[in-house]
């Protein structure tokens, strides 16, 4: 099977690249080995959040100070602002309404109640532009009885430390109580599928209106709206006070929605999305990749003029570590990683970890290196790239989207 481009990986970077190429008339096939880490995303994108543990307020400026090994530096710091605008527009075109801009970070609130710098956040989520000017003082934190993917105590404590006057209020409705018959399924994504009728939303709104007394802002876990934001709008029309969602622990409704909308948009543009298949090997002719064999398509490899590796980091198996080495499992590409196993990790899970920066080695056009030489038509994007650190630098989603858009330009221009 031949298309113009084959993308290995169906998460944020793969879908962004696929959409951008399909919009320019390319025929694109995406191979996705299962659902992606977007399901761990609470509804925000980050461009650059921290450098050496210090929060970044103006990411575009800070990006100029990054070392040459960082993917942003390879794209070119001067191109970031334009690509960031393009990324925001692509999300909007897919039906994902996010607020924020690349010149100044705002703050998102994690499920644990910590404020972290962010670039874009879903409109219905709590977003703080300035920690010295909170959007409200008295806050009602509505906690769903029996829902275990929100650590309410920590969340309330975190919000208090930010300066909110928080009242945590537990509530339930008949619908929620009946769902508790299956305690292992009291998850955000299950609630989002079951709490959809106007009457179920009205019963929740009634509880909120009864219990939130003098609050200026009502916070509710993000367990609504798996296909679009209309459930939020319906709830807001029923709740008498301003309402915002707070991110939950995964699987996340907001992240699932972002993934579903991007995938839908890609398919609408004529793209092929092979869900549940995975690339296993490639056929090379010198420094050119001819085709990719997948587990399911077997002896009929996917052929294309260009290939993009968007297979993610360790969690998505874009990178694999065994007892001897860190490697890229499909093509055995060159990786930037320490040789000695002792150097990979540091004691203390919250310490900066060397392995977070590992990834495939690329040239300045993000072409993948194999045996020290670039593969002419294989580019890497997103978390599989080396030189960045989604956890400690808060640059994961930005690198995913911006490297995807950057290589799109390379592929289209034929450079």
């Amino acid at each position: 099977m031949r298309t113009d481009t084959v993308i290995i990986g169906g998460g944020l970077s793969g879908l962004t690249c696929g959409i951008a190429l399909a919009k320019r008339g390319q025929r694109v096939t995406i191979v996705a080995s299962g659902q992606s880490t977007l399901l761990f995303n609470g509804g925000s994108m980050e461009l650059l959040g921290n450098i050496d543990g210090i929060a970044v307020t103006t990411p575009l400026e800070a990006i100029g100070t990054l070392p040459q090994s960082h993917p942003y530096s390879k794209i070119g710091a001067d191109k970031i602002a334009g690509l960031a605008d393009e990324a925001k527009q692509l999300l909007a075109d897919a039906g994902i309404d996010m607020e924020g801009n690349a010149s100044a970070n705002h703050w998102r609130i994690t499920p644990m109640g910590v404020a972290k710098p962010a670039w874009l956040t879903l409109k219905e989520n709590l977003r703080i532009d300035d920690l010295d000017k909170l959007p409200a003082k008295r806050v009602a934190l509505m906690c769903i009885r029996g829902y275990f993917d929100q650590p309410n105590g920590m969340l309330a404590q975190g919000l208090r430390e930010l300066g909110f006057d928080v009242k945590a209020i537990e509530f339930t409705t008949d619908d929620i109580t009946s769902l508790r018959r299956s305690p292992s399924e009291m998850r955000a994504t299950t609630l989002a599928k079951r709490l959809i009728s106007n009457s179920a939303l009205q019963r929740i709104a009634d509880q909120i209106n009864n219990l939130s007394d003098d609050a200026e802002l009502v916070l509710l876990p993000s367990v609504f709206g798996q296909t679009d934001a209309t459930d939020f709008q319906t709830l807001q029309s029923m709740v008498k006070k301003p309402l915002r969602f707070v991110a939950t622990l995964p699987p996340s409704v907001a992240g699932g929605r972002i993934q579903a909308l991007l995938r839908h948009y890609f398919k609408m543009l004529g793209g092929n999305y092979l869900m549940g298949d995975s690339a296993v090997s490639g056929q090379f002719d010198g420094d050119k990749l001819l085709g990719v064999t997948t587990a399911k398509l077997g002896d009929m490899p996917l052929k294309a003029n260009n290939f993009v590796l968007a297979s993610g980091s360790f969690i998505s198996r874009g990178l694999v570590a065994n007892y001897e080495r860190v490697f890229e499992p499909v093509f055995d590409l060159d990786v930037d990683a320490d040789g000695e196993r002792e150097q990979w990790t540091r004691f203390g899970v919250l310490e900066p970890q060397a392995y977070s920066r590992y990834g495939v080695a690329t040239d300045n056009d993000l072409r993948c290196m194999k045996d020290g030489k670039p593969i002419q038509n294989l580019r890497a994007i997103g978390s599989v790239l080396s030189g960045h650190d989604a956890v400690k630098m808060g640059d994961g989603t930005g690198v995913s989207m911006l490297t995807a858009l950057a290589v799109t330009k390379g592929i289209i221009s034929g450079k």
Partner: protein
Amino acid sequence: MAERMQLCNISDNNFEQCTKCSICTTVCPVAAVTTDYPGPKQAGPDGERYRLKDHAYYDKALKLCLNCKRCEVACPSGVNIADIIQHARMKAGEGQRASLRDTMLANTDLLGMVANLVAPVANATLGLAPTKLVMDSVMAIDKHRTFPAYSRTKFTTWFKRHAAKEQDAYPNHVSYFHGCYVNYNFPKLGQDLVKLMNAVGYGVHLLDKEQCCGVALIANGLYKQAKRQARTNADSIRKSVKDDHLTVLTTSSSCTFNLRDEYPSLLGVDTSDVRDGIMIATRFIYNLVDEEKIKLIFKQDFKKRMAYHTACHMQRMGWQLYSIELLRRIPGLDLQVLEQECCGISGTYGFKKENYERSQAIGSILFKHIEDAKVEAVITDCETCKWQIEMSTGLPVENPISVLADALDVEATRRANGLQI
């Protein structure tokens, strides 16, 4: 150390690879509509940890699993979650007898053989209100269901009478595993395949001996019988692929998945040596077209707007691409590719009275998408999806092979492939 630890750590179903990420729970169609089912993570790898200690931890709610395999498709770690659940069910069902209802539903070929003999009577009787009421109350087969109509002439009978003789004259050859549905209910699909393959220069041949693939037997707990039939089929397929060098084509996604993957994983009947020789017909045809070995020429006046539904087992095989890409080659076909959702029937599951409401609730998302697509018909590779969608939306549902055969300009195609008309 590395080698040793990993060797000790590998199960048939990748059980140990579960990272507890919970992504499977987001796609389970059953857990989405009922609180009676604990969801794939709990029913699969989580519950398995207990069951490995003591099978008394088996939970009867596992019967609610559709075996749709969407959890396996979603799993980023390659865990065969539904296989874990099926194995637990098989173990719990050992030594138990299936009910009359389940035995009847499971024996699609036996039922078909009897019904064929009395097709007009059977169709009329099975469709009658009093019969339906008796089936509903006595047999617990839901009264809303209509059995697919039985054909008066079996596909194999038609084939022997009208097609078999001329097949040897073609330059290339394939085998065809037609399955129960084509044989007893809908010979037209088999006839469409013969028409299509003949037009591109391929003679079609039946296997020496074909029995029901057994997918319904497995679902209804008749494992011994399923294993017997699997061995017969595996032998016939092996003869075709190994001795006669003929690829075995199919037109049903669930039969195909069963022959290729569930025979070894659930029944312990090894088909790995011939697995690559069994495939859905659209994959075979697509590849020939892609490699420019054959040409398909379509009618100028074919104009239709249809929606493609990816059957769950088709997605599990990862082959919907072939059907979709072939259909896209029909110039007059305005093809809407639907988001993958489960239709809710899952073979015989939805026929059972206790599952009817759940089955329809599961399918409701798909039915809405179909309604929104504003099409005149739906296309899918699975016959039970077809029954469910036809009953629930009122739209006709066709197999991709039938759509291709319908749109094909047979004479022009035969000529383009160098055949005498």
